[in-house]
C-alpha cells in the first residue's frame, strides 16, 4: 500500500495504491496528515488503484472528511471499484462523500 499526495493548484490529490487494510492503515493515516491541515482546498482521493478497503481505511476517509469540513475544504472520492462501492454503500459512505 502506498499513498502519494500531489498538489495541483487548489487541488490536493491523494492517490491510494494497493490494499488499504488494517495493517496498512497506520502508515496511510500518517501519509494523509497533510490533507488534514489543508485550508479551503479541493481534496481528491484517487481510488483508481485502490483494490480494497477495510473499516480502518474507511475511518481514515471519514477523518479526512471531518477535518475538511472544519477547514472549509471539499473531499471528492474518485474511481472506486465495485467492491469498494459496495463497502461504501453498506457503511452509508455513499451519502457522506462526493463520489465521482
Amino acid at each position, binding site marked *: 500500500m502506498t499513498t502519494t499526495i500531489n498538489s495541483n493548484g487548489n487541488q490536493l490529490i491523494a492517490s491510494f495504491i494497493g490494499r488499504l*487494510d488494517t495493517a496498512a492503515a497506520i502508515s496511510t493515516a500518517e501519509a494523509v496528515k497533510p490533507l488534514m491541515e489543508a485550508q479551503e482546498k479541493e481534496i481528491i482521493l484517487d481510488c483508481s488503484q485502490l483494490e480494497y478497503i*477495510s473499516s*480502518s481505511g*474507511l475511518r481514515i476517509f*471519514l477523518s479526512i*472528511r471531518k477535518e475538511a*469540513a472544519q477547514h472549509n475544504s471539499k473531499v471528492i472520492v474518485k474511481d472506486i471499484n465495485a467492491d469498494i462501492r459496495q*463497502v461504501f454503500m453498506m*457503511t452509508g459512505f455513499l451519502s457522506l462523500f462526493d463520489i465521482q
Partner: protein
Amino acid sequence: MVRRFWILVLAAVVLESIACVQYIYSYYAIKHEACERAKCELRAAELEIDLVMCEQEHALQMAVALIERYIDEPDSLAAMSRIMLQSMPNTSNLGLAFVSGYYNKKQHWFEIYTHRDTVDGKPTIITREIGGPNHDYFKDEWYQNAFLHDSCWWSEPYYDNSGARSMVVTCSHPIRNKKGEIVGTAGIDVSLAYLASMDNLQVFQDSYYSIQSSNGLDIVALPDTTGGRKYLVFNEEIDATGWHIAIVIPEDVLFADLRKTGLVVLILMLIGLGLVAFILYRSAKNVQSIVSMTAKEERMLGELEIAREIQNAMLPKVFPPFLDHTDLNIFGFVRPAKEIGGDLYDFYIRHDKLFFCVGDVSGKGIPASLIMSMTRSLFRSVTAHEERAEQIVSLMNDALSEENELNMFITLFLGVLDTKTGVLEYCNAGHNAPMLMAGGQWQRAEVIPNIPIGIDKGYPFKAQSMTLHPNEELFIYTDGLTEAENINHEQFGEERMLSSLQAMKYSTPRKLVEAMQKSVDTFVAEAPQSDDLTMLAIRYQLPAIVMRNDIQQIPTLAEWIDSLNIPMELNMPVNLALEEAVSNVMLYAYPDGHGFVFVEFAQTPASIIFTITDSGIPFDPTQKPEADISLSAEQREIGGLGIHLVRKLMDEIRYERIDNKNILTLVKHV
C-alpha cells in the same frame, strides 16, 4: 585362580570334617556295640558255666544220696559207681573216698574211683580201688574240703595229667552215714575242655577270650599272638566259681571295617575333590567365556541401541509435521518388537503433494531393519522425481528385487495426496488395506492387493485413486496391530481395531493412534510383543491459519483466504469480514499484546464457514450496538464500523466462550 584354590581348600575341609565326624561317630558306635555284645556274651557264658556247674553238683548230690542209702554195703559201691557215672554223661569220673577204717574189713585207705575210658575202640567205664600209700587221698584238698565245708565244694581248676589230660575242676561232697556223721567224700572231675571252645565268647573273628581261676590260673589262656597290639578288654566274674572271663578284642580287628570304610571314604573324598577342582576349572573357563560373551553382548546391545536411534531418526517424528499445511494432520507411531524392526512409515510434502508410505519387511530384527532402511531410502529417492504412485512402487520393487538374495519382501502401502484437491493416488503392494473414515463411518478402503515388493521384478503394479474430503481420515497400519496376541494367543483382530476407530472417529490422528495403542496394549496385557507395530493416521482436514496477535499479520490472512478457492464473488466480502473480525480480536482480546488468533475454514454445499478462535479476554463483538449509518459525517463516530461490516457481509455471526476461548463463527451462504 586364588579364589578357586580357596574354594578347593574349603571343599576339602568340609569333606574332611564330614569324614572325621563320621569316623569318630562310627568308632564309638562300633566300640559301644562291641562292648554291649561282649557283656552280653559274657553273661551268657557265665550262665552256661553256672549251668554246667549246677548240673554236675546235682548229679553229685544225687550220687551221694544213692551212696548214703547203700553206705552199709561197701562192696556194692563199685557197681553203683559205674551205674551212676553212666547216668552222668558229662562227668568223666567219680571218686568215693572214706575215712580211715570206716569199713573195718577194709584197710586204712578206701577209695573207689570210676572213670570213663576207651578199650578196644569202645567207650567203657572202669572202676578201681585206688586208695593206698601211693594214693594218700587224706591229704587231698578235694577230700578235706568236703569235711571243712560240709557241703558241695569246688576245687580250683588244675591240669589233670593222669586222667582227663585237660583242665579240670573237682567237685566234692561229704558222704554221711545213717547217723548223719560225715564218713567220706564223693568227688567228680569236671573237664573244662568245653571252656576252650565256647564259640559265643569269640565275639569277633580274631578276637580272643580268656578264663582265669580266682587264683590266677589260666583255664583258657590267651594265645601268644596278642603282643604288640591294642586291645579292648571286657571282664566278668562268674559268681559261682569266682573265675574271671575276659574278652579281648584287638582294636585292629574291631575297627578293621571302619578303617576299610574310612579308606574308601578317603578315596571317594579325593575323587570328589578332584571332581570339584575339575568343575571349578571348567566353570571358571565358562565364567570367562560368559564374561566375554557379556562384554560382546553389551557391545552388540550398544550397537543395537545406536541402530535403533538411527532407525528412529529416519522416521518423521515431529508432530504436527507441517506448520504451513494446516489442512493436513498426521500422526505416525512405530514400535519394534525387538530393539530394531522391519516396519516403517514415512511421509513428506513436495510441491503440495504429500508422499507417504507404510511398510512391513518380512521377518524381524537386524536383517529386517536393514531392508527397512533400504526401503525408506528408496521411497525418498524415487519420490524425489516421481509423483505417480504406480511408478513409485514399480521402481521401488525393481530396485529391491534386483539383489534380493535373502528373498526378503516388503508389504507396502504408498500414497500421494494432492493437498490442493484432496485427490489421493495410492498403490497397495500386498499390504493390509487401510481404514478410511468417510461420512462418519470407518471402513476398509478399497484396494487392489497386488503383491509385496522385492519379489518379482517388473510386476505390473496397479494404482488407484480416491478423493479425500475435508475431515476424512486414513488409518494405515501393519499386521502387528491386528495380529497382536494376548497370552491366550487370541489376536487383536480387525473387529477390535474397527470398534476402537469408530469410538474415536472425530478425534485428531494423534488421539486416534494413541487410543489405538492403548487399546491394543490393554488387550495384549502381559504377553510379549510378537511383531513390529506401526500406525499412521492422515487426516485431510479443514484449512486453518494461525496468526500472531499482530495487525501486521492481516496480509497473510488475505493470502490464506485467496488460497481457499472460494467463489470469486465472495472473495471480497469474506476477506473484509474476516479482517474486521480478526483485527477486532487483535485490538481488544489481548490487552498485553501477546497471543494467537486461529482461523478455520469449512465448507458445505450451502455455505462457507469460518471459525475465529482466540484465548484472550472474553469479548463478544455481537453485543456491540448497531452503528447508525444514516447520520451525517459530522455526527458519525470514527469507530464501530468493523463489526457493522461483519454483520452486513456475513449471513450469520455466532459468538461462544468455550474453554476460556472466544469462538466467533461466521457463516456465508453460497
